[in-house]
């Protein structure tokens, strides 16, 4: 069973990351944060992409399953995004002595947090399953258009206004092969976790809907 494999994989990866992989010279003890913070951020972005793609699919095919995926991925993505943002901020305080600096990556994760928050707020304000699915899909599609712009705006703004001295350590870190292996393993493990959580959430949503439909038509009412 692949869940058992996931358990084993994550356990071994964590042990390896903490004991076998060395520390990064500049980061010392805080090195270990990267094994959690970067996968969380990465999956948050993947979740957003998954949610947006399913929103577009919903607008095209009108199958409610796509909306289920869009909403579930958004909830999970928000969770992972919060984890990434908080862990990143604490890490920044430890290494750069400042919780928040509008560094390009910090800005991007903040933007993703905003999109998720707005999307979920919008969903909670609309009644009616079909209408909610449709309107939130439209919003997701519009947000989908703006994401690449932020990817181009942010580097331009920050190079022209403040050449950022706080270079993201991601560039330097992947030098020691043991760190790279540990990181890759954790990333795979986290991805498996995300996929599992997503499938659980989607199945729950479907069960709720089946129950709702069953409850609306009590036995023998036709």
């Amino acid at each position, binding site marked *: 069973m692949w869940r058992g494999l996931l358990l084993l994989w994550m356990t071994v990866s*964590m042990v390896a990351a903490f004991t076998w992989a060395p520390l990064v010279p500049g980061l010392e003890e805080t090195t270990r944060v990267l094994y959690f913070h970067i996968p969380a951020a990465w999956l948050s972005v993947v979740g957003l992409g998954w949610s947006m793609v399913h929103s577009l699919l919903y607008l095209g095919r009108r199958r409610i399953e796509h909306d289920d995926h869009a909403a579930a991925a958004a909830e999970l993505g928000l969770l992972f995004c919060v984890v990434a943002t908080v862990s990143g901020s604490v890490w920044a305080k430890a290494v750069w002595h400042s919780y928040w600096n509008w560094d390009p990556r910090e800005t991007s994760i903040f933007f993703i947090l905003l999109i998720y928050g707005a999307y979920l707020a919008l969903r909670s304000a609309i009644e009616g399953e079909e209408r909610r699915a449709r309107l939130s899909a439209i919003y997701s599609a519009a947000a989908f258009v703006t994401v690449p712009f932020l990817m181009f705006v942010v580097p331009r703004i920050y190079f022209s206004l403040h050449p950022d001295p706080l270079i993201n350590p991601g560039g330097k870190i992947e030098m020691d092969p043991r760190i790279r292996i540990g990181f890759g393993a954790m990333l795979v493990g986290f991805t498996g976790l995300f996929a*599992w*959580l997503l499938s659980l959430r989607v199945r729950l949503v479907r069960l709720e809907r089946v129950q709702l439909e069953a409850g609306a038509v009590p036995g023998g009412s036709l």
Partner: protein
Amino acid sequence: MSGNLVVLGVALLAWLLLFFYLMRLERRIKELEKR
């Protein structure tokens, strides 16, 4: 080194707890889906 192991221990514990919680969820959902 020992501080490192403490953090590792906490992280592993958290992961194991999460895993078993998720397995319970998984079983309950499977049951509901069969009905």
